[in-house]
């Protein structure tokens, strides 16, 4: 199982949790499993075709998955997958 860190904007979609355990051997499988467990997350981060939206950054441990093998990046027990959309807040 891989730990998936959930950003604040998606926490409601996973019942308020800050991390979720998900199964799979690649980033794609882990996120797929996450979206199976919590379909509301899928509605936010996946396109109708099932691809990740471009505005969703995914990190495996501290490295940008885009610079690894994106959704094919292998992950295992002990790895952390972090979902990171940009935040805009600052002033008001």
């Amino acid at each position: 199982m891989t730990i998936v860190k959930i950003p604040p904007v998606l926490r409601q979609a996973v019942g308020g949790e800050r991390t979720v355990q998900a199964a799979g051997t690649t980033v794609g499988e882990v996120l797929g499993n996450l979206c199976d467990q919590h379909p509301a997350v899928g509605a936010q981060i996946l396109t109708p075709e099932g691809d990740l939206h471009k505005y969703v950054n995914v990190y495996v441990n501290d490295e940008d998955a885009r610079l690894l093998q994106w959704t094919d990046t292998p992950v295992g027990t002990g790895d952390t997958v972090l979902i990171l959309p940009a935040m805009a807040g600052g002033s008001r």
Partner: protein
Amino acid sequence: MSPTYQDLIARAREVIPEVEPSDVAPRVEAGDGPLIVDVRETGEWDQGHLPGAVHIPRGFLESRIGGVAGDTGREMLVSCAGGQRSLLAAVTLRDMGYTNVSSLAGGFARWKQNDHPVEVPRILTPAQRSRYSRHVLIPEVGEEGQLKLLDSKALLIGAGGLGSPAAYYLAAAGVGTIGLVDDDVVDESNLQRQIIHTTDRVGMNKGESGREAIRALNPEVQVNVHPFRVTRDNVLDLLSGYDVVVDGADNFPTRYLLADAALMTKTPLVHASILRFEGHASVFVPYDGPCYRCLFPEPPPPDLAPSCGEAGVLGVLCGVMGNIQATEAIKVLLGIGDTLSGRLLIYDALGMTFTELKVRRDPDCPSCGPAADLRLRDYEAWCAGVGTHASEVAGATA
């Protein structure tokens, strides 16, 4: 019988060569002169000294010379006010094993009489030395760094949650000029976190209110109030007047606009964003590290990116993140330490954890990549259209 002062000077003259100012001045002016060691007291040094000289008051000569001279064979010229203290100091250096030491005949007085160039060090006033004494004590800042801060100009986008603590601490630190860009007025609901404002200034422009707070804290800081929104039409003018820009904006169009304008004006951009219990921070140094768009190629749609006004924010989170921005801005201005360039810092106040992610330059970045067609665009339209027609509006594929 013990030797008198005159005996000591006479003995020093027997072993230490004396150099006339006119003989060494051409070399000093050409920048290939000896290492000039000025042994006068600080008050004398502050009035002016030979160009390029290093200052070691005579009382510290033995302890400090090793740090500046390097090897013992280095050619050194010792100078003082009239040419006598330097002779005695030169004897000390000779006794320490320095073999190539001479003394400036007639000292700084004769140098100045002969109209050779003089460097007058910029120094802190006694009031500044007292106000900034805790900075001056830090070797990485010191008097020189403090003078640099006093000469620096920082532009803060937003005098709100992030801008309030950032502006306050930058002003306290003596950043000489602070620009506050905000078209908004102080609202009662701001005061839970926007600590630069006060209850009796509700209704006042946030920049004006910030200026009042800064004036009370540190009157020597020049505050420029820019009471309008940053737009395509004013952003380049705004940024070009400042050394660093601190992004505390509250919306994506402004953040992407700033990111591109920072690249165009080559202004370092200190980034932070906040929501509820979580903050992001990074530093974007144009064409040296990644830019904002290398990190976030596209903004999320509005339902995935609520503002603090919609989703809330822990007031004190603003203090943590705004002060991380102030810290990074000071480091950028002083050129010290390792900034967050190339890293995104995520602070989770609920878990009290700091997580660091690597951020790399995207070779295909539409803003800073080699093939980028960098120009200011309609960021409102682009952000509104992300996921649908984003590419055509913002030239994301260019």
